[in-house]
């Protein structure tokens, strides 16, 4: 295994009296694609959001690409540029064009000139197959296109890791494929990815490792074939059975 690029240890997260993460350890190697599955409320999204500190872990440690994310001396804004995140609800900025969405952080955080940022932005849109939609606003795009713009917004910053938080859950079924296609090509280019999703087919043929979470803890992890065909735990079996009957 290559050196870990994401190294999270002993993560706990409380929301008031709710104990959402109960000591989660997760290491991800460079170029690895890790799929996180589990019932809703199992803490998958919270885990993801702790990795780029959108959510403040109650205790534990998170090191990404050698940077201690929880150290108060860490420039969190700089660190976050290395960690792309794609949201279930896209969260595109509705008052900007696709290109504007992609170039905002390039200009304001990475300090690129407008021309440089636009060149990089167009290249990123090209990679998700939307070069011709640069001037469209989110309202003029389909859900699948919006999500691809959101992916472009992240990859334009050349992140070391990409986090996907249920990227296809808000999409109509016929639009899911185009987003998965972009994720597959990212994977082929060697991007390290952590994906929370219910797209089991994609997990089966693209993931290096599948992690099953339940009630705030990791129940088991392993290669997709092992998890899907012969899970070691009853809870995993039940969950996979429910998903596949679906």
């Amino acid at each position, binding site marked *: 295994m290559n050196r870990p690029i994401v190294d999270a240890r002993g993560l706990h997260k409380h929301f008031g009296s709710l104990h959402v993460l109960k000591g989660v350890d997760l290491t991800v190697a460079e170029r690895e694609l890790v799929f996180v599955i589990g019932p809703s409320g199992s803490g998958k999204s919270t885990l993801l959001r702790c990795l*780029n500190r*959108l959510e403040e872990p109650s205790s534990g440690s998170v090191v990404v690409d050698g940077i201690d994310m929880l150290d108060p001396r860490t420039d969190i*804004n*700089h*660190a*976050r*540029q290395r*960690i*792309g*995140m794609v*949201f279930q*609800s896209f*969260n*595109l*900025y*509705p*008052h900007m064009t696709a290109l504007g969405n992609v170039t*905002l*952080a390039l200009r*304001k*955080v*990475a300090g690129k000139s407008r021309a440089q940022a636009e060149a990089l932005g167009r290249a990123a849109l090209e990679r998700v197959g939307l070069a011709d939609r640069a001037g469209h606003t989110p309202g003029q795009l389909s859900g699948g296109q919006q999500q691809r713009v*959101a992916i472009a*917004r*992240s990859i334009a*910053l050349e992140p070391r890791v990409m986090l996907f938080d249920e990227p296809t859950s808000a999409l109509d079924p016929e639009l899911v494929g185009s987003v998965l296609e972009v994720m597959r090509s990212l994977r082929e280019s060697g991007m390290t990815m952590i994906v929370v999703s219910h797209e089991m087919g994609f997990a089966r043929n693209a993931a290096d490792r599948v992690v099953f979470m339940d009630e705030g803890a990791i129940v088991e992890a392993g290669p997709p074939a092992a998890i899907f065909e012969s899970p070691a735990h009853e809870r995993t079996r039940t969950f996979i059975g429910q998903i596949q009957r679906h």
Partner: protein
Amino acid sequence: MIQSFFNPEIIVASWPIVRAGLLNTVLLSLLVVPLGLVGGLMLALLASVKHPVVRWPLMAWVDFFRAFPPLVLLILLFAGLPFAGLELGGFVCVAIAFFLNTGAYYGEILRAGIDSVPAGQIEAARSTGLSRLQAIAYVVLPQAVRNVLPDLLSNTLEVVKLTSLGSVVAVPELLYQARQAQSLTYNPTPLVVAAIVYFLMLWPVVRLLSRLENRALAGR
């Protein structure tokens, strides 16, 4: 009737006085609207820190000025402060009173606008490395302003109308000048002229607003 309210000779004679007042009303508005907006923006940004230690005093501040008649505030500054040895003059008093009073109103509107922007917008911006302030400036505020544009415009209309309070503390704006002309000519025609000037100046804004408001309501 015509002799009292639309006396042509008096219109002609008083026009230079009224015109000077109109100019001052425009200048005063150009001063107090940005002043109120800046005050409001400061309050709204403070309010976006959703901590009870900030939130409650802020709400009390805003409600205080919503409860306090602006004229009372103005008189307090203009006639009260000199007793503490601070004589600010009518113009400065108007500026301060407007900063406080209209700032509270603008603040409340902008706060509602910021609240109307989904939390995912800030999260997306922060995930790409924008700081909290950058996320608010580039992502949240533009959407917030657009969402509450009718309310902002409506408040601005009220602010411009409110500049007429300047007449009470001898700021030579439109109403003050018209009253001067009225007392010089012993005829209410200048007041009617001033009213017509206000109407012509603000009517387009009122029309636009009632369109925007109807559209906003119909869209719910």
